[in-house]
């Protein structure tokens, strides 16, 4: 009996060691910019998930929103002889160069959200286009329900007409609005630089020139929050228990700051969408898949990930709580935080 137990123990240890050898690898993750909640959360999930699922060690390097620094981070990871790299960069040409650089040293690369200039490596794609479109529909519908005599007038804060953002976010949102209101007009589209304060200032100018604007889309939550701050400063930004009074604001990413406003019944910021956990896990799975030979690192393949829409009318606070816990490492109680932040009427 003892011999049998001993053999079983040795066999299970051997199995465990074998699994560890197969997956106990070091991989690299180059973050676009660790300043943003979205990218911080992705990096944390890749590290945690990689360790838990594959026993993998992940070296995270911050690209600081700079193509040159992202490329240097890739070079750094190559020098550290990681087994695979995931890159999140909006610079399509630089990403292509990074893929070729890593590949020359036998290191496979997976990209995320923004595809490289040539589609020659596995890619993880959050399905933002349909979610942006559905938010456009919802924004227009809710505006017209409350203000049937005022056609939709849309302002968009983007990243400087960056093509992938147009494909994934701004154009489908606008098309969604247009599908509901054929008389809708895209009044202006300016660069909010992804930044809350800059977007606040630009929105003040937009509303000065175009006070008729009644739908604002920020191509990330930071810009949408800036737009809301500007609206509030000039006496706008209001809803009455979800009924649009001054405008409807939409953002993107689904972070905590956005959720606090979305579930305030009297704030005009009312919707967002995002995917963090599933994107991070897909990146990790793809890296391990390439390392173990299950995924061809030299062939374009796309892992699609749902970008979940959260809005005031169709989502509940408990759902948003779960979303934030799963995606943004949120540890608070959303209902309490909303109550604390919400002004009594």
């Amino acid at each position, binding site marked *: 009996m003892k011999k049998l137990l001993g053999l079983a123990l040795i066999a299970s240890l051997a199995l465990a060691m074998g699994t560890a050898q197969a997956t106990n690898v070091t991989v690299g993750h180059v973050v676009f910019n660790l300043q943003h*909640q979205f990218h911080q959360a992705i990096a944390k999930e890749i590290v945690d998930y990689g360790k838990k699922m594959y026993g993998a060690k992940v070296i995270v390097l911050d690209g600081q929103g700079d193509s040159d620094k992202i490329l240097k981070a890739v070079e750094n990871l190559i020098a550290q002889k990681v087994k695979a790299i995931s890159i999140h960069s909006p610079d399509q040409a630089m990403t292509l160069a990074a893929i070729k650089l890593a590949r020359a040293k036998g290191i496979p690369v997976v990209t995320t959200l923004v595809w490289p200039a040539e589609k020659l490596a596995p890619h993880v794609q959050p399905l933002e286009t349909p979610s942006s479109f559905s938010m456009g529909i919802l924004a227009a519908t809710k505006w017209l329900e409350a203000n049937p005599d005022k056609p939709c007038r849309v302002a968009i804060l983007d990243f400087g007409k960056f093509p992938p953002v147009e494909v994934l976010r701004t154009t489908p949102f606008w098309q969604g609005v247009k599908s509901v209101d054929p008389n809708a007009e895209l009044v202006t589209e300016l660069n909010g630089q992804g930044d809350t304060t800059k977007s606040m200032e630009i929105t003040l*100018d*937009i509303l000065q020139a175009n006070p008729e604007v009644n739908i604002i889309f920020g191509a990330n939550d930071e810009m949408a929050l800036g737009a809301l701050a500007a609206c509030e400063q000039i006496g706008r930004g209001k809803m009455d228990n979800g009924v649009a009074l001054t405008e409807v604001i939409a953002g993107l990413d689904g972070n905590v700051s956005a959720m606090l406003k979305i579930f305030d019944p009297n704030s005009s910021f009312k919707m967002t969408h995002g995917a963090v956990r599933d994107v991070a896990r897909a990146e990790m799975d793809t890296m391990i898949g390439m390392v173990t030979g299950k995924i061809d690192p030299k062939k374009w393949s796309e892992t699609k990930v749902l970008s979940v829409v959260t809005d005031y009318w169709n989502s509940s606070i408990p759902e948003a709580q779960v979303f934030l816990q799963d995606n943004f490492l949120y540890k608070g109680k959303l209902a309490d935080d909303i109550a604390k932040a919400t002004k009594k009427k």
Partner: protein
Amino acid sequence: MANSFSAIQIDRQKLVLLSILAAIVVAMSFLSPKFLQLSNFQNILLQLAPLIIIASAANLLMITGNFDLSIGSVLAFSAIMHAYMSKLGLPIGLSIALCCMMAVLWGISNGIMVGYLNVNPVIATMGTMYAARGFAYLIARWDGGANISAGLPSDFSDFGRTNLFGVLPIIIVFMLVTVAIFIFIEKKTVLGRFSFAIGGNRKASVLSGIKVPQMTIVLYSLVGLLAGFCGTVQVSRVGSGFPNIAEGMEFDVVVAIVLGGTSMLGGSGSTAGMIIGALIVGTAANGLNLLKVPYFYQTITKGLLLIVAVFADQTIRRRG
């Protein structure tokens, strides 16, 4: 005689700047019907107010021949600290006071490095720039995220969004008060006179008994104080604490000051000139936004305005 000549020269500089400002205003008025409105001028001032408040002190500092690259970072540090302390339950007023004090400490640190230890102001304040910004990110991390938004009290935004008499945003009031104080300091006080003396000839100032290191510390502290105060106002206006707030603001401040005719070598300049410089940049940016001009053209315009204004200034100086 020399003084009156200098006064005429400075007035001519301001005249050139005012002409540039007037040209922008006239052009924008024709191009956008929404430009020439009282609400738009309030909008421009609302956006420029933090810059003008901080630049009031930074201008005097530059008149001594020094400058401060840590402005944006100290503002961010103060902003995030204010959000953090408010979230912890500190009364808003107390939190603002503490943040201002901490910002003054950053200023004193800059002043000691530059005034006593003779560290080059670029190096000294660049060090503070990185350190203060790093702390801002660190504080956000302590709170558990990239920014501080959850758990802030509902009255957190009230301070920054208050309108005096229901119409005048409080930050514009602060700006008017600050400008008045600094014009007074510049024209009527020992601090103002000594600043010009130090910038004009540092060695002569030391020999004539001016306590240059102490003066330097005072001026850096004032810049820190105003940057810290503006941080608390800005974070209150935005409604949540972002550590990347005011990134690059130090350059906007330098642009406004240099456009306003203050010499980067020190010894000359004025608060009034700085205000005109800030208005040139702010009015052009506002007008271009009203005209829906893409951001990169705005950056080019800002650069061209700076070059044109500095070129005009240099030409006047040479002819003077």
